[in-house]
């Protein structure tokens, strides 16, 4: 039997490296009908902002080859409702939670983190993922994740609000010239780990109506079609860590994982944990299936510990 446990920081030893991906699993109740969410290494919730948000109008979705484009617009209940209802529910079923937080200003991120910390269910939290792929109102809507200084400021402010034993993960966008520069800025600002990758910006035109298919015009591309981008991004950042250009921190791999083999690809590139996102829309029990397949694959390849497979493709 392969030892699947993994420590992503803060002394929270997770029983396995499998997680949901933010925005692809709601806040737990829906998928709990298909599998026990406490069986996952961690449950990653939908990015939450300070106030309730309606999200965008429809259509919000377009199918693409081996993937999809979405333009939800961060619909959500706001952090107060999240800590009053969603987090306590996740705690009640024994889930380890990696909440994803978002904001349109660095102070909003800090406020959301502070409210989270004050929650009565904070014991269930094993880390916080910071979704920095949000438009920065103070910088004409340029997303934080495309600007190393803005990314660093958000991470530093969030880090200040949380106890030391709660690792902070910066979720990076692949839509940048040099992802290692953003990764370095985030780690230097106090990020204890990185989540890679967020969606890629894309667009589909409805050729019947000759207009953009999404109500929000552009959207985030996800699904197996983007997996090579995730593998490349994880590889580059992990390589920069080996070369000493970035301090070594854990990477949570996400992007197009549908099977155990896909997960192993991200792991071999340098991921210490795996999130399953869009594949859930195809198969609601995908996270636990991928975990089972990954475990079988590691066993067949003779790995005794999951952690022995992390970044194994480097130097081969």
């Amino acid at each position, binding site marked *: 039997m392969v030892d699947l446990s993994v420590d992503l920081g803060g002394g929270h030893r997770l029983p396995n490296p499998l997680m949901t991906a933010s*925005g*692809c*699993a*709601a806040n737990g109740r*829906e*998928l*709990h*009908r*298909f599998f026990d969410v406490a069986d996952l290494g961690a449950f990653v919730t*939908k990015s939450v902002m300070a*106030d*309730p*948000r*309606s*999200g*965008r*109008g*429809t*259509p*919000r*979705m377009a*199918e693409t*080859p*081996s*993937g*999809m484009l*979405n333009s*939800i*617009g961060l*619909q*959500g209940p*706001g952090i107060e409702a999240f800590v009053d209802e969603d987090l306590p529910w996740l705690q009640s*079923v024994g889930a380890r939670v990696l909440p994803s937080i978002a904001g*349109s200003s660095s102070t909003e991120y800090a406020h959301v983190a502070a409210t989270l910390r004050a929650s009565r269910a904070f014991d269930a939290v094993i880390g916080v993922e910071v979704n920095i792929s949000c*438009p920065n*109102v103070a910088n004409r809507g340029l997303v934080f994740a495309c600007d190393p200084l803005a990314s660093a400021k958000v991470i530093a402010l969030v880090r200040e609000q949380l106890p030391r034993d709660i690792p902070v993960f910066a979720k990076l966008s692949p839509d940048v010239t040099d992802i290692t520069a953003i990764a370095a800025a985030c780690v230097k600002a106090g990020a204890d780990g990185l989540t890679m990758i967020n969606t890629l910006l894309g667009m589909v035109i409805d050729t019947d*109506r000759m207009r953009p298919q999404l*109500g929000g015009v552009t959207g985030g591309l996800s*699904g*197996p*079609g983007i997996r090579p981008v995730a593998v490349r991004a994880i590889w580059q950042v992990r390589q920069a860590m080996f070369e000493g250009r970035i301090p070594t921190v854990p990477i949570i791999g996400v992007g197009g994982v549908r099977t155990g083999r896909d997960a192993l690809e991200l792991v071999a590139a340098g991921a210490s944990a795996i999130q399953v996102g*869009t*594949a*859930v*829309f*195809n*198969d*609601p*029990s995908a996270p636990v299936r991928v975990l089972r397949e990954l475990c079988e694959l590691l066993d067949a390849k003779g790995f005794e510990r999951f952690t022995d497979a992390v970044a194994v493709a480097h130097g081969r």
Partner: protein
Amino acid sequence: MSERQLRARVTQEVAEVIATRRVGAYQHLTLVAPGVAELARPGQFVALAVGGETSGTLLRRSFSIHKVSPSGTYGGTVEIVVSAVGTGTRWIVDRAPHDTIDVVGPLGKAFPLPTDPVACVLVGGGYGSAPLFWLAAELRERGCHVEMVLGAASEDRLFGVVEARRSCDGVTVTTDDGSAGQRGWVSDPLPEIIERTKAGVVYGCGPMGMLESITRVAQAHDAVAQVAVEESMACGVGVCMTCVMPVVGSDGRTRMVRSCVEGPVFRGDRVRWDAFDGGHARVPDDAVGAPKVGGH
């Protein structure tokens, strides 16, 4: 409700196709899905995966359940009616007997049933009529007088006229081109039927524009409209947030709600029809958390 019961209300199963036949412009499939058949209620739907485990078409296609037979010869079966309009639905109609399809269901909220035996009118547009026959049978078991209005663009796009005559107390057919029944829309004969039967509830399933007009007619004649919407969905299980539409809650406030979990059946007078326009649903300015000027 215990955790176990909550989890038992939906199932995922690999269903064998045991029958498939052409009905007018549509394909009628019978699937062996005992878990779904056991749990489903009229108005609920199933979400079907397309093209097997390695398919590049990831998103599930949702269909309202036409009929269930919990204890058929082959085990419990579920029947659906499919209109082949794109890659995914074409793959589904191309399945032959003994092929398998991954099915998740039953999903969504069922049609609410009246506690008293009031008269009901069931209105179906095109193959939107699929779930109404099952509903009609349940209503008549409760002593309700049930009439049905079936409408479509043309005769080949009507679904279930014969079945309607068998399962209802009265049937009216309309087509846009007059190729069957009376020429016109389902909303044309509706006022007379509601008045004559003193109907308390109008159930509808079909395109948004039709559901809006059913709602308007029902309101004008003091009947409650219960409409099942056909929004495009990616997952069907409540996690993707793509099938939202603006609906007024019991607190009087409008929210963008998921039609897969809070619907697909809504009270017609709760839907913000004013926000729909040619396949788009915008967020009404007074909706909870609506974008402020300069925001988003």
